[in-house]
């Protein structure tokens, strides 16, 4: 039987990972929708408008799930982690409050204006609304990532001896936490990948798959969507790697234990190799088999092949000296494998995108008669899931390898849970969230599959701005 702390951690993991399927897609799709509409606004070409509507619809239904699951995030620090909220509320609370006031109002209000406003707003103003939504999603990411970065690397606060609670020292310092500065670009690049891979798969399926569109203008649109999605996936994939490298070096400095468990490096080593995969060894013994790249871990951790990387045992001894007796080693197999699966899934998505882009260069069709074309078409249902897998494994790594701390080096996870909370209560809520989220996932997938099967809609007709705006009634609506 799991105890209250374990159940609460499991619940936090489930609702947060689930929420984070919809968040990055919303960030990416909002930017793509704004870009497509801008292309239409500047060129007047119809296929840009058709694709704007399609991507915008996927954005709306995705955003809706993100909103309702995000509400849970806003509440759950008080629901399950009230001791953490009481101790760190002064530092942590303002990020949530400011995210809400600054970003959520923008996103929610302007997405409504955009979707229902095609025949109500002048074209330029209407275009501005979707750009405001896109900016709002990024603002939201910057502010809320500061909250997470605080937990990785607590800064900008001091403990008030009188009240025994942490107090915010400077909000600006909280925002420019070095972990936040490194994590935000990494997260945003990962978000762009989710949107890119989704659009690549949808476009390729409709351009060259069994549901291929026969008519020429439709085919051109789907092909454009596939290649745009491909470029987004590839470019953001490269950006993920570069930003991930930067983040890894910051992490090695502020949370050396995290890099040590990522590599299951038990003993401090100079010129440390990076193990691509290993059989056995996660328990501290010599691995049965390990495929290593020499010096790579030292390069990843410190940018120098000869650098010393601290091992788990040395760090444990150091932490026990500083923080008192205790086990400060995270769950090594989870950290080791989630780190590798994160990289593997991300790289695979970027490689698939590169393959499609190369094969369809200069107006070529995807060679569905050749094995490579067949395999690429078969990979399409999996392709949109890969960046999500990479994101999820990345978060699992970041959060589990922070344990046993809630705020690294300052506050233990076991101390954060709500004191009166019972296992029965958390079990009940865990069942409720899991069942509902499962149903929502099925409904969302079926709805998106429905949307991408439709012919590209010519509606709404752009309003003739010389007419009275109120007489046109062609907006998409209920």
């Amino acid at each position, binding site marked *: 039987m799991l105890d209250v702390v374990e159940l609460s951690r499991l619940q936090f993991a489930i609702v947060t990972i689930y929420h984070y399927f919809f968040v990055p897609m919303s960030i990416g799709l909002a930017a793509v929708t704004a870009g497509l509409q801008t292309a239409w606004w500047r060129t007047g070409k119809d296929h840009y408008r058709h694709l704007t509507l399609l991507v915008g619809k996927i954005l709306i239904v995705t955003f809706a799930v993100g909103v309702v699951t995000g509400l849970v995030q806003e509440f759950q620090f008080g629901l399950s982690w009230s001791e953490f909220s009481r101790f760190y*509320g002064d530092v942590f609370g303002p990020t949530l409050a400011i995210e809400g*006031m600054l970003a959520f109002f923008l996103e929610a209000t302007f997405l409504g204006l955009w979707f229902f406003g095609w025949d109500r707003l002048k074209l330029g103003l209407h275009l501005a609304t979707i750009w405001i939504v896109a900016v709002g999603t990024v603002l939201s990411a910057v502010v809320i990532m500061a909250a997470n970065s605080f937990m990785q690397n607590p800064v900008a606060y001091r403990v008030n001896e009188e009240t025994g609670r942490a107090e*915010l020292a400077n909000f600006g310092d909280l925002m420019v936490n070095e972990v936040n500065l490194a994590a935000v670009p990494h997260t945003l690049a990962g978000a762009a990948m989710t949107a890119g891979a989704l659009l690549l798969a949808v476009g390729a399926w409709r351009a060259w798959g069994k549901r291929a569109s026969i008519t020429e203008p439709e085919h051109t649109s789907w092909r454009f969507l596939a290649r745009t999605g491909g470029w987004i996936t590839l470019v953001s994939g490269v950006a993920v790697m570069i930003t991930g490298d930067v983040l890894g070096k910051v992490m090695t400095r502020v949370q050396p234990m995290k890099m040590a468990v990522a590599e299951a490096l038990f003993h401090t080593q100079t010129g440390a190799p990076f193990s691509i995969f290993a059989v056995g060894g996660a328990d501290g013994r010599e691995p049965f088999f390990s495929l290593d790249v020499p010096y790579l871990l030292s390069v990843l951790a410190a940018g120098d092949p000869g650098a010393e990387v601290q091992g788990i045992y040395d760090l444990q001894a150091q932490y026990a000296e500083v923080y008192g007796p205790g086990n400060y080693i995270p769950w090594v197999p989870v950290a080791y494998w989630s780190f590798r699966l994160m990289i593997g899934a991300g790289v695979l998505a970027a490689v698939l995108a590169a393959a499609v882009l190369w094969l369809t260069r200069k107006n070529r069709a995807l060679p569905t008669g050749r094995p490579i074309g067949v395999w690429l078409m078969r990979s399409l249902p999996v392709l949109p899931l890969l960046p999500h897998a990479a994101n999820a494994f990345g978060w699992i790594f970041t959060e589990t390898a922070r344990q046993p701390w809630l705020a690294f080096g300052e506050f233990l996870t076991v101390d954060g849970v709500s004191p009166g909370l019972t296992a029965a209560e958390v079990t009940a809520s865990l069942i409720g969230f899991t069942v509902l989220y499962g149903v929502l996932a099925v409904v969302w997938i079926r709805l998106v599959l429905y949307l991408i099967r439709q012919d590209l809609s010519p509606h709404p007709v752009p309003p003739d701005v010389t007419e009275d705006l109120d007489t046109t009634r062609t907006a998409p609506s*209920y």
Partner: protein
Amino acid sequence: MDLATLWFALVVLCWVVFFVLEGFDFGVGMLAPALGKDEHQRGAALRTIGPFWDGNEVWLVAAIGVTFAAFPDWYAALLSGLYLPFVAILLTLAVRGVALEFYGKKDDDEWRRRCGVALAASSAATAGLFGAVFGAFAGGLPLGPDGQVAATGGALARSLGALATPAALFGAVAGVLAAALLGAAYLALRTTGPVHARARRLAPRLGFLAAVLVGLGLPLAGGSWWAGLLLAGALAGIGLIAGGAREWVVFAAVSLVVAVVPVLVFVPDHPVLLASTLSADWSITLQAAAASPTALRTITIAAVLVLPGVIAYQTFAYWVFRKRVASEPVAT
């Protein structure tokens, strides 16, 4: 006025705006299947809230987020103390938002029917749960010396038990009725045709019903008799004028009554934010729960910079979609 008091006022304001704006969202969601006799009429009813519901709901995010930032102890005690009721609210709100947003995205009668049913049920449940939760904590929670509700008796009853009180039951019924009344007044204001006519006919009946319920129920549930009398009188007045007065007057009157409720719940106990039913010493008070001066200054600056803009662009959104929605088929 110090910053802590200012933020107490702003928390109450967020709840007031949320109750009024989401109140009619819930009401419209509940009433759409009843007032709309066909696809077009139901679609028209939902189109009156389509562009706004999400922006309205952010006022809840603001209320909770601001409580966390300005009064961490209050946030911690309230949410952990009413754990399961708030989880239930989150679940029904999730169904509500998704059902509404998915409703028109598939051109299929069965799909729309299912979304409509889910929307109506979850809207009524959310309104009832908010009423119940406000009823439950209006009289305080059994907070211990650590400012939290301890586990006593049945494991689920720790937080669920608060809903099995007269105050919570009254709150639940009042919440559903208030949302329905506000929704009817809003639909009367924002539609034309058959939906409009039915909403107008429904509003006075709901007004009288609510007047009777509040007048009798509030004192019985442990509320003050003068508040019951005041609200019942106002609701009866609404019932009297709803048949003949201008629609915006009726809507404004109902909004005012709904807006008074969070004020009546929060303000009379001032400076107690959340009373302990076990000992007055364990109650959570404004000054003790307030965040540090730096945190309060930070969110004050953010609010001064951001909130006027929020109010301006939300007003702009309502202005853009000010035209009444016709429930006749529209040319596409």
